């Protein structure tokens, strides 16, 4: 059975969720003096940059540390598919910092597992938290949970969750797509 692609969050809803996530982060991290934000390449960085921007405005702290983290070299599916790296851009060390890892969709958890490894090349953090926009329940392959969640959804593994951003697709929205051909929908 095939379903048409459906939008589960539009731009307005997405904006409200991001606003809420920012305030949740501030509850824990206060002014972010000891915290850093890492966006996971390739798709998590759009959410992470937006959160970083809004946090700077709300906290009036223009110095919040931000980096893009690519996990390609740390993945566990090397040789199962062709993996092309993206850019890592972190010009600080995370030693003794509180790290907020940010990705768009949490599905099997394998990307985050790789991210935890990749991050360690930049020091030993005091604490690591995970923030995701979409948490796909009941689909985890590894015991990883997010502390901050935009929206939790139930979906079957043949479906794919896609997050569009103004910067790349021209509009902010979250889709559920059905992909019958490819059962292996690791993002």
């Amino acid at each position, binding site marked *: 059975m095939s379903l048409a692609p459906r939008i589960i969050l539009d731009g307005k809803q997405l904006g409200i969720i991001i606003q809420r996530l920012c305030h949740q982060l501030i509850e824990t991290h206060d002014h972010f003096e000891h915290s850093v934000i890492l966006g996971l390449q390739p798709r998590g960085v759009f959410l992470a940059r937006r959160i970083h921007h809004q946090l700077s405005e709300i906290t009036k702290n223009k110095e919040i540390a931000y980096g893009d983290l*690519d996990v*390609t*070299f*740390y993945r566990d599916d*090397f*040789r*199962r*598919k*062709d*993996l*092309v*790296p*993206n*850019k*890592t851009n972190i010009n600080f*060390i995370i030693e003794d910092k509180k790290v907020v890892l940010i990705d768009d969709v949490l599905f099997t958890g394998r990307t985050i597992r790789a991210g935890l*490894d990749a991050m*360690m*090349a*930049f*020091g030993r953090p005091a604490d690591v938290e995970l923030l995701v926009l979409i948490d796909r329940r009941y689909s985890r392959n590894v015991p990883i949970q997010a502390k901050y969640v935009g929206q939790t959804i139930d979906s079957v593994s043949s479906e794919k969750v896609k997050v569009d951003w103004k910067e790349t697709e021209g509009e902010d929205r979250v889709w559920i797509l059905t992909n019958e051909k490819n059962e292996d929908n690791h993002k």
Partner: protein
Amino acid sequence: MTRLSTKHLLGIRNITQDDIELIFATADNFKQVINRPIKKVPSLRDITIANLFFENSTRTKLSFELAEKRLSADVINFSASGSSVKKGETLIDTVNNILAMKVDMVVMRHANPGAALFLSKHVQAKIINAGDGAHEHPTQALLDAFSIREKLGEVRGKKIAIIGDILHSRVALSNIHCLKKLGAEVMVCGPRTLMPKYMGGLDVKVEHDLNKALKWCDVANMLRIQLERQEIKYFPSLREYTMQYGLDKKRLDSIGKKIVIMHPGPINRGVEITSDVADSDQSIILDQVENGVAVRMAVLYLLAGRTEN
């Protein structure tokens, strides 16, 4: 482009421009990795690589070994001296014995042109040519072009002169293929006796006057005189070669522009290039060495991770 068009890296001649660009984009990431406090990534943790050096090498062997270790591969080393090759074992037998120990990739240097190609037809492992006689040395050409791209922003449209012993140089041939594929203009310069006849078929300029070549180019790649490959005398004396084709500060300053100086090593200081030129701010010789590790990591990573379908 997410994968290489080839299963082995035998030469630059049989890879595409897209392959080269994919290798460079991947090498950019590895260059950043090797400049971090922790220089190692776990990508090749379940891959075993044999470095088979049937011919002497310092830089290439070290560079490959470092690249392999930075990718967390298991590495075994073999060099012809002190092995059964001296007892008369054939190349195929030597390699098959090593492969029976479950090796995934082979990095090989051999004195015979085509040795890597021959091997790729007879064994299952992925082969990387680290120099086969006077034929090709693909990773050297890739790191040279990568270094030019880094220094000048791009390779396309740039004028590169390859100067010295072209006849015995695998670096020259691989460099010509690589630079042409990337859209550069290439000139070879050297004595007539060290200029192979087939140059006409490669669409490169041929020059015998070093001063003219230097005035023409943006980058001069100075090659070493390969005395170990010369069975007969190709020029009267090293001193005469140096007078005609040696690059010194005076000659470099006389051309009236700042060109980039490269050398694949090992340098014969005072023969093809003087120390003050090799160590000057126009020289990118040590950048070439650093980039060599990043480029070889990229090649190893892309070949090892390449899916079969």
